């Protein structure tokens, strides 16, 4: 079977999409020429397609600092730390959604099962540590970004910083608005009778409202107030803006080796904290029961969330490892 060059070109363009933009801008043209020649010689080769897909994915992993491919040491550290931040964000979105569900339940009644109570205590402690680590991590990065912007040397930082601040503002304002409207918290006489203050429980519940099995039940979803459904659609976008803005800021910011070391050390602590949170979460999912009034019921979405958190932890572990590799090379 002989293919004309146009068809081979179309196929090569499709295959090139496996690779990230940066890789395509460096190797795209010459690689396309090789692909066209190969496609003309072997029009139907699943091995070539699989090989290109695999290499493209490796190039993408390299671009986010997760593969063994060498980047420039400082780039490696920054890229891996940004990826660590993204992995932690995914972990926290699902983890906090589960934790908020349990804290809300505890506002009404204590769980019966020791496994659920112990799991909740472990998760709550881990969330507190996450919050402390996040504050400590943001200070040097924020300070460096502000210093660059003040000296008019942060041209590439304006947009990601605005993205981050915009996402954060929407989440805080929206989370508070919808949290305050939740019965049982925010001024209700029963608030503060649970493990964590009712206002905190309601805010985290509202911020992660989009992580819900109601997406799989459109009939039930539409019975929600329209404003809540709109918030469930908008809040993930705000979350994405926040995470992407933070990751881009870190990648574009020329952080000193000292700050990179500091952030990597916090990353190690965060990875251990993720492990502690997972242990608590698993205790509830595996050994806990539904409790009074089905308040601590484990649903399919919780199991799916647990699986996603395990994956996020694996990515975070890899990112921490690669960041430390970059820092070790930087120290040589």
């Amino acid at each position, binding site marked *: 079977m002989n293919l004309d060059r146009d068809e081979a070109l179309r196929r090569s363009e499709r295959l090139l999409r496996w690779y990230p933009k940066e*890789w395509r801008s*460096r*190797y795209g*043209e*010459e*690689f*396309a*020429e*090789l*692909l066209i*020649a*190969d496609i003309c010689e072997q029009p139907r080769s699943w*091995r*070539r397609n699989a*090989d*290109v*897909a*695999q*290499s*493209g994915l*490796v*190039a993408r992993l390299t671009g986010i600092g997760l593969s*063994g*491919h*060498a*980047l420039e*040491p400082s780039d*490696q550290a920054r890229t891996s730390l940004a990826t660590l931040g993204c992995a932690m964000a995914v972990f926290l979105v699902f983890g906090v959604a589960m934790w908020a569900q349990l804290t809300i339940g505890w506002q009404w009644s204590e769980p019966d099962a020791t496994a659920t109570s112990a799991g909740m205590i472990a998760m709550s402690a881990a969330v507190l540590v996450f919050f402390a680590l996040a504050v400590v991590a943001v200070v040097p990065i924020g300070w460096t970004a502000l210093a660059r912007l003040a000296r008019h040397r942060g041209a590439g930082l304006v947009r990601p910083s605005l993205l981050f601040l915009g996402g954060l503002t929407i989440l805080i304002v929206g989370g508070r608005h919808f949290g305050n409207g939740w019965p049982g918290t925010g001024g209700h006489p029963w608030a503060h009778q649970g493990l964590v203050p009712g206002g905190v429980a309601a805010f985290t519940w509202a911020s992660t409202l989009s992580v819900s099995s109601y997406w799989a039940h459109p009939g039930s979803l539409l019975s929600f107030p329209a404003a809540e459904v709109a918030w469930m659609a908008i809040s993930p976008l705000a979350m994405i803006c926040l995470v992407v803005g933070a990751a881009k800021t870190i990648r574009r910011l020329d952080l000193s080796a000292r700050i990179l070391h500091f952030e990597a050390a916090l990353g190690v602590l965060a990875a251990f904290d993720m492990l502690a949170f997972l242990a608590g979460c698993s205790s509830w999912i595996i050994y806990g029961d539904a409790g009074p009034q089905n308040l601590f019921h484990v649903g399919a979405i919780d199991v799916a969330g647990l699986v996603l958190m395990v994956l996020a932890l694996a990515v975070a572990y890899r990112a921490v490892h*690669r960041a430390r*590799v*970059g820092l070790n*090379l930087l120290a*040589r």
Partner: protein
Amino acid sequence: MTPVARTKRTGEAGGGRPEQIGELGRYAGPATLILSSLADGPKHGYVLTKDIESFSGVRLAPGTLYEALSRLEGQGLIEAVKSDDRRRPYRLTAAGATVLRSHLAAQRRVADLGLRRLAGSWGPA
């Protein structure tokens, strides 16, 4: 694929210029073939594939070839040659020649030893 000694996974650790091809980890095989092919002059992707196939019987798939090329270029063992053509040629650097020479010498020692032992136990070929 040419068997290549894997000394340690510093390729995995990333960064810096490898002193041995074995340090390139799973890319050591394609790296040996590419560096050997470039030893007699610059070549672009398609010619590299054909040359490697002719002297080793191995057809490197395009993805594998470019993954190895980008690693070798990143580690300074090869470099791109300026060209007006869309097909950019690559050539061996001095560092690449040193690493290849040392690797092939080590390979030859292993091959000689294996052949001597085979001849001792199983008779000459």
